[in-house]
């Protein structure tokens, strides 16, 4: 009995030592998380209830309750930015998912697939500023190749990046082109993980290629689709660079997105409190969408990515 007690105490000491060692090793990342996430988010929440312009100490800034939040929804530019972000996020995410899946499936069994994958992946590793500049030239009304090609098809020239009817869609097309590559690579990895025996069995049963795609490929790719859907949606909701680069000459209400609204509110209007409130609203929206997507997929049997 005495020996068991001694052994038990020894095990608790060892466990304690292991825990302490684990926290010591984790401390750098915990410190990083505490400073750059927990403190930053907490500070932002605190500031969202104040009227602060960065010219005085935040402690001296007057508290105004929920005024920053309520004033946002009465600002037509905020609601326009929200609408533009919804359109941008959903369109780019769905378009990238669908196109990259189809392309990955097409590239799965062809010769020289590596070259094609490089061609599709190259835009993903090109800096957004370069992408924005190049597509700015492509969309040039008089000398751009887009209008040139459309002209061959009898479509009149348009001012793609300044016309409020087309500017956002033009930027979405650029974003889809730039964002497909990474998704194609991830889908390729997912496709390679599907056992060939499933397809062989389906072939024996007389299933067509389309049937095999719907019945085998898609269901087994659900975890990959879920991952890309969530990460794509989160990224799309936070888009800034392409809109900043390509949307400068279009009416603000037709292209401005939430992140650009936050930036302008903070650094042009010097309304840090209001900008923080808008950032909190963005955070809540992205969180709700992510939880919604997780719930839908969990009902479909996906237990990973919990």
């Amino acid at each position: 009995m005495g020996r068991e007690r001694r052994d038990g105490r020894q095990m608790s000491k060892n466990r304690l030592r292991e825990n302490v060692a684990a926290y010591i090793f984790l401390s750098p990342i915990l410190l990083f998380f505490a400073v750059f996430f927990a403190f930053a988010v907490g500070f932002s929440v605190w500031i969202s209830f104040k009227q602060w312009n960065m010219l005085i100490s935040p402690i001296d800034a007057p508290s105004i309750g929920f005024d920053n939040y309520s004033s946002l929804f009465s600002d037509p530019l905020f609601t326009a930015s929200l609408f533009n972000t919804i359109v941008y996020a959903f369109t780019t995410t769905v378009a990238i998912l669908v196109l990259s899946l189809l392309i990955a499936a097409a590239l799965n069994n062809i010769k020289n697939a590596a070259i094609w994958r490089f061609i599709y992946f190259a835009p993903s590793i090109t800096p957004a500023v370069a992408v924005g500049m190049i597509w700015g030239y492509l969309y040039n009304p008089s000398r751009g190749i887009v209008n040139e090609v459309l002209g061959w098809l009898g479509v009149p020239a348009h001012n793609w990046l300044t016309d409020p009817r087309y500017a956002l869609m033009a930027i979405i097309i650029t974003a889809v082109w730039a964002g497909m590559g990474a998704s194609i690579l991830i889908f390729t990895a997912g496709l390679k993980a599907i056992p060939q025996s499933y397809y062989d069995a389906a072939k024996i049963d007389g299933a067509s290629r389309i049937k095999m795609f719907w019945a085998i490929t898609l269901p087994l790719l659900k975890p990959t689709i879920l991952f890309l859907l969530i990460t794509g949606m989160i990224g799309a909701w936070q888009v800034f660079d392409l809109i900043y680069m390509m949307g400068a000459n279009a009416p603000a209400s037709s292209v401005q997105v939430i992140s650009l609204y936050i930036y302008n509110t903070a650094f042009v209007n010097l309304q840090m409190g209001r900008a923080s409130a808008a950032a909190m609203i963005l955070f809540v929206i992205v969180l709700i969408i992510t939880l919604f997507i997780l719930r839908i997929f969990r009902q479909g049997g996906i237990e990973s990515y919990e």
Partner: protein
Amino acid sequence: MRRMFWVLFLVSVLLSFAMAKTVLIIQTHWSDFQVNGIFNKAGKLIYPGLKQYTEEYMKLHPNVEIKIREVAFNNYLQQLLVSHMARKGADIYDLYSLWAVQLVNAHILDVPPIDIVNDVKKDFVPASVGGATIRGKIWGIPSEIDDYALMYNKKLLSEAGYTNPPKTWDELVAMAPKLTKYDSKGAISQYGFAFLSGWDSAVVHPYLSLLYSLGGSMFNKNYTKCLLNSQKGVKALNEELALFKEKATNSAGNVFNFPQNTVAMMIMAPWYVSSLKRAYGDKYSEYVGIAPIPPIEKLATVSYTWFFAVDSASKHKKAAWDFLRWFALQVQPKTNTTRAGDLEVNVISVIPPNRVDLRNHQKQLADLKVFIDQLKNAIPEPNVMQGAQIKTILMNQIVAAWNNQKSAQRALDDAVAKINPILDRYYH
């Protein structure tokens, strides 16, 4: 022995404090050759940039070290605010006067010494002094003054049968469609007129020039009311929209395509002249003409100012003002110009606001003659609180009108509806 060691150690520490250099940081939106100077092909310095002037000053004052912090115009205010908050602000700023209003309100700028204030009043053109004046006080030494004029492509005008630029706005609106060409796809390949766009001043300043030409005003005297949706404000915007209606321009027009001879006329500031001179080389005078903005009723243009100021949190305020005195006020006996004036004229290609530089750089300023002449008709843009926000609001409404999303009246009514609450907060 030990005592000797400690005495020597203490003396060396005290000496190192005494000999420590005063380090000044100058923050500027100038960059590249504007800071580093202009060199010929053989690598010989032709015109000194800001860096060479600071090196000259450091030779004269060995206990002073000057560092230059280059910050792009788009990020300048943000960088200033963030670095000030982090207590890593510069000592000397070259400030756009509109930004300075809030900096003064927040006590971020140091009050200049009285001798500097008196010299500025005495030696600088009134429009630039007005730009550096906030709430009745002068806050720095003007570093540049800009106004707007009509720039036109002489060759494109003569090809269309015009030997002279338009003398009135109505003439411009009549000429512009005849100078506009379309390609086979229906896109404009040559703009009769192109508007500057992409940032707030680009869109707002030409509009203000037209508003001032009508005798209008953006605000009332004490900034308690925005007057943009007055009859004159709406008329000024409608005069711009006339060019869109006549299909002489659209919102895709890009003034920076001027060197490609695809823009016949535009309203621009003098800082673009140096780019055009580099683009056209020897053919500059053949192609580029500059004339006053054709008036709707009377000759007018808007001006804006940059000025040198010192951060109130600077640990070396006296040294900072001493440098600025030497750089921007002291007249060099050989040339009878100031060093800042030399830099502004020879390198930055802007109008120097000091009268002595205007008098003694006449040859170099020949290409900016119209801009300088128009200073007498220049009305400074108002130094109003939240100026950048107000200009962005106005820019968004003007661009919406350009794109036929709103009428001029509706656009300016919407602008006033957003601007008046801002004025209420700060001026009531």
